[in-house]
């Protein structure tokens, strides 16, 4: 254990530009970012790029059902990843499924970020008994597995997009709150906050203009990882049948639908959506890890 001698270099680049530059140095993270961007783009453009509208029941034909990858169906085009039990083109179903998965993930992640930050920063600002009590509540919730909480809540609230988002946010905001609380409490004791208070500036102003912006980076990292886990949590719930209704098939629904055919050798109905899910979640996690490494001064060289 020896301290490192690293020369201090004053650079004139903005923090954002330095951040981008350091990000570019990690090839894996850069590739993961490209994968995430590609998937998001495909999902957004699904109606334009998908060969088939999986919601248009009139376009489906049972004659095309459960066909293997590479099959040329009655529509006259190749089903590169095969078809499902209703004769849906799997590529199209997956693109629309990704759309729903991403929508759920971003919505739940974004709301968890907003609610968790508000709760954590408020608790840090209040401090004392009230702030402490708020954080004990968060800790209590963190001691339950997120999946269990989300499962129970979805079962109680019933099926539907909003209900699912509510369940996901309730299961996940606590992680954000914990991080936001820690970051805000650390900032609160720094000299620039003492300087603002000695000016004096109002407590609310110090909180919003000084503490919050400085506490935000680690919170955003946690939230980005939470987007990935919201996506997989949603897929799990949908797979278990308590998530989204069958009319809005997410990746999880697709996996669940194909699951019964796995043993009969029709692996593609479950496996391809599953692979898409793994790639998406992994890529988001790699990007999140890289951002965390760059923001964490302890891991910094």
């Amino acid at each position, binding site marked *: 254990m*020896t*301290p490192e*001698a*690293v020369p201090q*270099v004053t650079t004139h680049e903005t923090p954002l530009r330095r951040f981008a530059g350091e990000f570019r140095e990690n090839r894996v993270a850069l590739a993961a970012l490209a994968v995430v961007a590609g998937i998001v783009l495909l999902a957004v453009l699904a109606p334009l790029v998908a060969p088939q509208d999986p919601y248009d029941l009139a376009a489906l034909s049972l004659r095309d059902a459960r066909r293997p990858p590479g099959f040329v169906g009655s529509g006259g085009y190749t089903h590169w990843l095969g078809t499902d039990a209703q004769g849906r083109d799997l590529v199209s179903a997956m693109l629309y499924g990704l759309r729903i998965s991403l929508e759920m993930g971003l919505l739940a992640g974004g709301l968890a970020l907003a609610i968790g930050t508000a709760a954590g920063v408020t608790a840090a600002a209040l401090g004392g008994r009230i702030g402490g009590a708020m954080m004990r509540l968060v800790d209590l919730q963190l001691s339950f597995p997120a999946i269990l909480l989300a499962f129970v809540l979805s079962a109680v609230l019933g099926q539907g997009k909003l209900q699912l988002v509510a369940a996901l946010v309730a299961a996940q905001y606590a992680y954000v709150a914990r991080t936001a609380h820690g970051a805000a409490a650390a900032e609160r004791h720094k000299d620039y906050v003492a300087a603002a208070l000695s000016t004096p500036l109002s407590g609310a102003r110090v909180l919003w203009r000084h503490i919050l912006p400085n506490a935000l980076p680690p919170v955003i990292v946690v939230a980005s990882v939470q987007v990935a886990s919201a996506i997989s949590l949603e897929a799990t719930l949908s797979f278990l049948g308590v998530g989204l209704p069958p009319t809005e098939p997410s990746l999880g629904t697709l996996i669940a639908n194909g699951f019964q055919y796995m043993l009969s050798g029709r692996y593609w109905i479950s496996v391809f959506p599953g692979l898409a899910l793994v790639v998406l979640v992994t890529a988001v996690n790699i990007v999140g890890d890289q951002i965390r490494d760059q923001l964490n001064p302890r891991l910094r060289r």
Partner: protein
Amino acid sequence: MTDEPTLAVADLRTHFSTRAGLVRAVDGVSFTLGRGEVLGLVGESGSGKSITGFSILGLVDPPGRIVGGSVRYQGRELVGLAPRDLRTLRGREVAMVFQDPMATLNPMLTVGRQMDLVLAAHGRVRGPERRARCLDLMTRLGIPAPESRLAAYPHELSGGLRQRVAIAVALLNRPSVVIADEPTTALDVSIQAQILREMIGLVRETGVAMVWISHDLAVVSSIAQRVAVMYAGRIVEDGPVRTVLRAPRHPYTRGLLDSLPARARPGEPLAPIPGTTPSLLARPEGCAFHPRCARATELCRTLDPERRESDGHGFRCHHPLEAA
């Protein structure tokens, strides 16, 4: 053996390749150190003085690298030595004292236990003698009630005691060279005085050679025989400490001395060096000090001055100040 210096550093270069560019932190540093000699390595932040110390012990981590020069310890080349051999050498022959004593001490072990481990690791002192050696060293470093300190954990000691224990750990295996990197900077003056006093005595008794890295000219003048002043990765002036501080030849050394409040009457303006230390990424052409120097000419802007020497007093300056 007689004229072989204990430590000879020649044209040492340690560079860091960062994203912002190549940082020439140490760029051609040379000095020698004889037995029982204390060399004060002086400079401001970013001058490369600490990285020089780390480079001697092979403690530079990527993105830093020793790109040239040599470090000879009793005639043996250390640059390029296998990490394993370096580690053996570091504990036994060449030791380091850091500004933060907790860089040396393990918070989970008692002082006695870790001193014992350090002695055992190098296997030259047998069990029963170890305790006596520890106590003797602690007494010599002015640690009160050494017996009871052996059972203490580092966090139970005050900052000053902790640093003295860290120094004791560094000296346990009777190294020939100690590199001390700002060991008293974080301490109060009364504790600093204590450590300086004990170290001066210890150097006299044991003949250990020492590189004392500091930004404080007064501290260096009281412990070192020779001084080397660093600026932007190079030694710009070196020589007997009193001579250099009494009659510096380099304008930078003169500027450092004139910045001290003791040099002016109370309430009168001080004479600081104008400007700021250069970014290591953009070392000025020619003499690195020329943008801040009142004596700079066209020559200084274009040509890097070579080291010149008179009576063991070396300096890198085209327009040196008068000798005393």
